[in-house]
């Protein structure tokens, strides 16, 4: 803004017509003009805002984060009470967003892959059903779907007393979804440790197997063995602990269930809506990825004597994933961004908590900046991870 005025004087331009036609100097002039316009606009908005804030005596700065929030949050991953500070309330919201996004992304990828493969099925009925699902889900706004699932929980499902039990130990009612989980046992942490140890072991085994294959050409049964280690180790611990199989089954006490794991209607509606909606887009991506691999690849792989499983895992998938991953990343980000619609159905995600904060403190600028920064961080983290993965999968050209 400061540099804007002195350079663009008409006098100069008239005197040195040849000088002004130099593309390099022109480029500098244009850039100064653009920066000047953007700067002026920014300054105009900024000064108006400062003026308005002063007039309406709204506080500025992030000092409010250390004040008492004094509102309750329906569900939280960490202990939280109304006496806690705003910053903790916002953290609770951010964790809830991460929870929905994390579970949602995993379920979406599974359902989307399944639908994408179903769409390509040679079975006409299955393929057409998948096509109808994909088309219908893509054409209905996510917010409408969320409202529908929310009303599904509150208007359609009965009270806990008449709860529907679709599977043994799973109860659906207007208080949400309750299902049985294994009762806590001291062996569980050891099982988790065994699983992690198994994963690390598998990682090294794969590296060793690849090196050996490069050296000797012999194929090691990596997949079967990894699966065996990852399931087998925790299973052994479980058996050693005497196979504890007691379940924490939800029971109807009074008007609601106790025990089991409870999923609130808000969380349930948000998760179901997001997963069903995004899976339709993922299905299209998976279909396109698989179709992008020419038939010749399959035929060539079979011609050199690979088994069908090997054709898929060694030839088709590595190539298809390369096509699938970039658009899949953007769908995952979409899911994360769409989870902000939780505010419409009352699930306390980050946007919902931030908007309560804005209403209580009146500090809209800070609140909205926080929302934007948090989502930009989510986007950045996801795309960094995916870029790393993408680079790993990318075609190594020799």
């Amino acid at each position, binding site marked *: 803004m400061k540099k804007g005025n002195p350079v663009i004087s008409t006098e100069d331009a008239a005197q040195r017509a040849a000088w002004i036609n130099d593309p390099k100097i022109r480029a500098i002039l244009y850039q100064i003009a653009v920066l000047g316009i953007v700067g002026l606009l920014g300054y105009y908005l900024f000064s108006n805002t400062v003026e308005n804030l002063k007039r309406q005596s709204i506080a500025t700065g992030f000092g409010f984060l250390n004040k008492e929030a004094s509102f309750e949050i329906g569900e939280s991953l960490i202990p939280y009470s109304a006496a806690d500070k705003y910053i903790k309330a916002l953290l609770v919201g951010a964790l809830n967003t991460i929870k929905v996004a994390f579970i949602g992304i995993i379920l979406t990828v599974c359902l989307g892959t399944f639908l994408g493969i179903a769409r390509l099925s040679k079975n006409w009925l299955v393929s057409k059903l998948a096509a109808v699902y994909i*088309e219908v889900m893509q054409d209905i706004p996510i917010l409408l779907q969320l409202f529908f699932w929310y009303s599904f929980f509150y208007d359609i499902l009965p009270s806990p007393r008449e709860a529907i039990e679709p599977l043994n130990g799973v109860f659906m009612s207007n208080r949400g979804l309750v299902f049985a989980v294994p009762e806590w046992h001291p062996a569980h942490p050891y099982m988790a440790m065994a699983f992690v140890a198994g994963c690390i072991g598998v990682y090294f085994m794969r590296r060793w197997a690849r090196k050996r294959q490069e050296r000797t050409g012999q194929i090691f049964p990596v997949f079967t063995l990894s699966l065996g280690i990852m399931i087998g180790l925790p299973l052994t611990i479980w058996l050693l602990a005497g196979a504890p199989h007691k379940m924490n089954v939800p029971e109807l006490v009074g008007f609601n269930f106790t025990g089991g794991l409870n999923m609130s209607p808000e969380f349930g509606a948000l998760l179901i809506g997001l997963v069903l909606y995004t899976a339709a887009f993922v299905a299209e991506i998976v279909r396109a990825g698989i179709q992008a691999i020419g038939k010749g690849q399959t035929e060539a792989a079979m011609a050199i004597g690979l088994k069908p499983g090997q054709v898929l895992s060694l030839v088709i998938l590595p190539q298809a994933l390369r096509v699938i991953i970039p658009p899949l990343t953007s769908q995952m980000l979409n899911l994360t961004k769409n989870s902000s619609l939780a505010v419409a159905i009352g699930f306390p995600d980050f946007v919902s908590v931030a908007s309560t904060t804005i209403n209580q403190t009146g500090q809209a600028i800070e609140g909205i900046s926080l929302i934007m920064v948090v989502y930009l961080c989510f986007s950045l983290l996801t795309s960094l991870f995916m870029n790393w993965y993408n680079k790993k999968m990318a075609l190594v050209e020799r």
Partner: protein
Amino acid sequence: MTQSGKNNIQKEGLKAPIIRIGVVHWIKANLFNGVFNSILTIVTLFLLYKVIPPFARWAFIDSLWFSSAEQCRAGSGACWSIIPANIRFILFGFYPHELHWRPFVAMIMLIGLLLYSKNRNHWNRSFGYIWIAGLSIMGILMKGGLFGLTPVDSDQWGGLPLTLMLSFFGMFAAYPLGVLLALGRRSQMPAVKTICILYIELIRGVPLISLLFMSAVLFPLFFPEGVTVNKIIRAQAAIILFTAAYIAEVVRGGLQAITRGQYEAAESLGLNYVQKMRLIVLPQALKIVIPPSVGILISAFKDTSLVVIIALYDVLKTTKSVLASPSWMGFSPEAYLFVALIYFVCCYSMSNYSRRLEKELQT
């Protein structure tokens, strides 16, 4: 295969065996080819049998179409009566009741214009003027105040016209901005390029809802004292700013698809930057990006439903307020299915059109 089948018939006068032609062959080839597929078909058919008859019974046989809410509560089927009983509020919101013909005519005009635009032979210079004239007439119809039409304050606009307006005006206003941003991102000038990249990535990184919040609570702070901007216009501005970033990315794809030779040829003819872009590059690039642009229009159309959250009365919000009235409470599946049908018909026809266009333009 059909050729050999024909030869057989001609040679021997025999029909091909039933297993090779007609319905039986089709069923065998598409539903029961192999053990796995046969099981899959049977399981799917069983699931459909479990789902479809009860749904059809609820939706069509036991349903009530023109009744009061009390009669509905007594029945066991779907209560479609909620739609005809409240259709005018759902479609037009708080627009004055006796003036509903005006948004109705405006909507018909918009649909007519869209149908007219489907034919690519109509795309020429006068086409643009027709659109501008059409949009102005629609604006006058909605707003009133001219030609003896009663003025209607835009606070009273609502329902489907609002949804259509937010998405179509959003798209049209965002397109030039998006093209400029795309050109800026491809520019050689570092300052321009940085500003454009920052804008595009910032907007694409945040959810639309944060921009809508911004339009609701921050935009009023941006203007000097005494200047108030209507809530709908503010939401429209947020949608335009949001859509422009996505259009910019689509147009950038088109620009990248134009080969270097085109740029060099334009430069060797002595065209300056504006001429080069306007006469050589953009006409080709924009042609390539028509199908993905329709995709953006579809998502803009769906995304306008988010204005519910800042309490604008679009078609979803009017439906929700019908559902909030005590007499119609609890009939949400029927009402939401109706709104879903509206959205589905609009989006499906647009995406179908975009797919057809993609095939036509692939030359």
